[in-house]
């Protein structure tokens, strides 16, 4: 029986509307709303997003305004003109901190987008096909799990930065930041692949997938319309954790001095101002606090989502 036959039969049957309960999403949202730490996480994440979008509007100065240097105003403590003070290069700390938000979000979302794509593809194929393909892909994943990701990324980013000097690539804006995002994504997928595999293995044996197969649904539809939507909640949890992780990783890479010197990022501010910590602690504390709140926000949100969408896990 083909899919078209099934549709005809369905159309011929008398329509009886079943009373529909709230969908999975709505149920999850209700549970999330009752979770205090989860809501705090959501609040923090929303705050970062709002700041990222509004940074050009609410920032009191331009991000590259160093005019404080002109009248010996660098490293000045917080004042009416500069709420968070100025840093060693004469930048307004508040402005630089606000402008760090879009960078952080782009890094987190970009890296996780790449990682999710690879992870779900690898894990999904392994879980759906099973057998030799599963064995092969998962052994490959194990390789990526024991790569000391952080120190390898440090080396590659630095070498990449040296190699492009003198080539046409040099002029590409945000090249280093892009490299960091791509590398974080390329090395960040194994946890997602493992989870995707487990979810696909579990879901492909469920009755509704069997039913879909019985009415002759194509594998593509089974994967994208039946299995993937049901695997999404668990995947989103790990992805949310990963966004926080990627933001933290970029901050640490920049703090060590291997970030993109042309971008405004929290880690970059830490790197430039760490040496004057004693004289101008505000220039370090403000971006540090921003990193902490952002990472905490994504961690708490992930926790909340996990409780909301996988309530069975919680005892």
């Amino acid at each position: 029986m083909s899919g078209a036959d099934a549709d005809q039969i369905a159309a011929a049957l008398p329509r009886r509307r079943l009373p529909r309960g709230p969908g999975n999403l709505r149920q999850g949202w209700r549970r999330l709303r009752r979770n205090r730490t989860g809501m705090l996480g959501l609040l923090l994440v929303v705050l970062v997003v709002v700041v990222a979008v509004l940074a050009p509007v609410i920032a009191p100065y331009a991000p590259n305004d160093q005019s404080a240097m002109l009248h010996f105003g660098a490293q000045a403590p917080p004042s009416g003109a500069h709420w968070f003070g100025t840093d060693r290069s004469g930048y307004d700390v508040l402005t630089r901190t606000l402008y760090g938000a879009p960078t952080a979000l782009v890094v987190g979302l970009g890296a996780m987008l790449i990682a999710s794509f690879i992870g779900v593809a690898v894990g999904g194929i392994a879980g759906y096909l099973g057998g030799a393909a599963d064995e092969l892909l998962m052994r490959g994943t194990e390789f990526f799990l024991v790569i000391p990701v952080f120190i390898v990324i440090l080396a590659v980013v630095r070498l990449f930065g040296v190699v492009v000097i003198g080539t046409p690539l040099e002029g590409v804006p945000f090249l280093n930041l892009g490299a960091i995002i791509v590398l974080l994504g390329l090395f960040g997928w194994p946890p997602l692949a493992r989870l995707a595999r487990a979810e696909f293995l579990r879901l492909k044996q469920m009755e509704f997938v069997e039913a879909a197969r019985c009415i002759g649904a194509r594998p593509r539809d089974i994967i994208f319309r039946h299995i993937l939507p049901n695997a999404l909640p668990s995947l989103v949890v790990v992805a949310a954790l990963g966004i926080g992780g990627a933001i933290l990783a970029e901050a640490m890479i920049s703090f060590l001095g291997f970030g993109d010197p042309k971008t405004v990022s929290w880690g970059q501010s830490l790197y430039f101002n760490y040496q004057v910590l004693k004289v101008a602690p505000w220039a370090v504390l403000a971006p540090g606090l921003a990193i902490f709140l952002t990472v905490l926000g994504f961690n708490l949100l992930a926790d909340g989502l996990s409780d909301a969408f996988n309530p069975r896990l919680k005892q």
Partner: protein
Amino acid sequence: MFAVVLVLGVSAIIFFLINSIGSPIDMLMADRPGVTDQAIAALKAYYHLDRGVIVRYFIWLGSVARGDFGTSITYNQPVGPMLVGFGLETLKLQLPAIFLGLALAVGIAAVAAVRQYSRVDFTVMTGALLGHSLPGFLVGILLILIFAYWLGVFPSYGAYSTLTPLWGSTFADGLWHMVLPLTMLTLFNTATLTLLLRANMVDVLRHDYIMAARASGLPERRVVFGHALRNAIIPVLTYLGILFGLMLATAPVTETVFTWPGAGLLYITAIQQLDYPVIMGETLVVTVMLVLFTLLTDIAYVLIDPRIRLE
């Protein structure tokens, strides 16, 4: 067996990633007009850079197998002994931090789990969650700001005083320098291990054999630390293995914050100076450690948990 394949495979991936990007000689000589082409060619031949990347990987692997990690370009010293020397400075911080963290976490988690949902439990859990979410290097910066700069109690950088040791004792001087970085690492380890242990502890304490142990009249201390802890710690082994395996991998950030002369700082300077032998040597050592401790974790499971037996 798979472990060896894993190390070889990962080292190959890293080698190609780092070496396919460009020739270190070209990068180092780019801004030195005085160097002749012949000298560069000789240097390239000396470092086998005139060969293909695959040949170079096997040449490197061969010399590593003989215990020769090459010579550091910036320090002009053999890389192997250098890694041992700097690595020991790193372990001096990381090992005590793990053991201290575990000891503290066991005590705290036991207290919290026994009084589940009490005010003590709530405080412990909030603190642990916060300590776990706080990025370590930010804690380190805060510690330096408060205890080194504002209070002036502890030194802000280094493992030893540069001129005269404090109180005329090198040992006491070394310990005094360890306090802040050790605190930072221990805080994070304690928080994370407490989170894991408390959850397992709460789980284990519900079991019948705990009730049986209590009913048999054993003192509560023996029940919690003898019977419950033994079972609660089993799932934590995986995380402990990761902590041990990552000792050198997490060092760059810690050691940059405290200017600690260990393997992490060595690695950072090696990357800055494009010191290929050091970069390759250290990434290999870190990979071996990761694989080794994953393996040890599996063995530890079999030893501790009689329910698991190797097939």
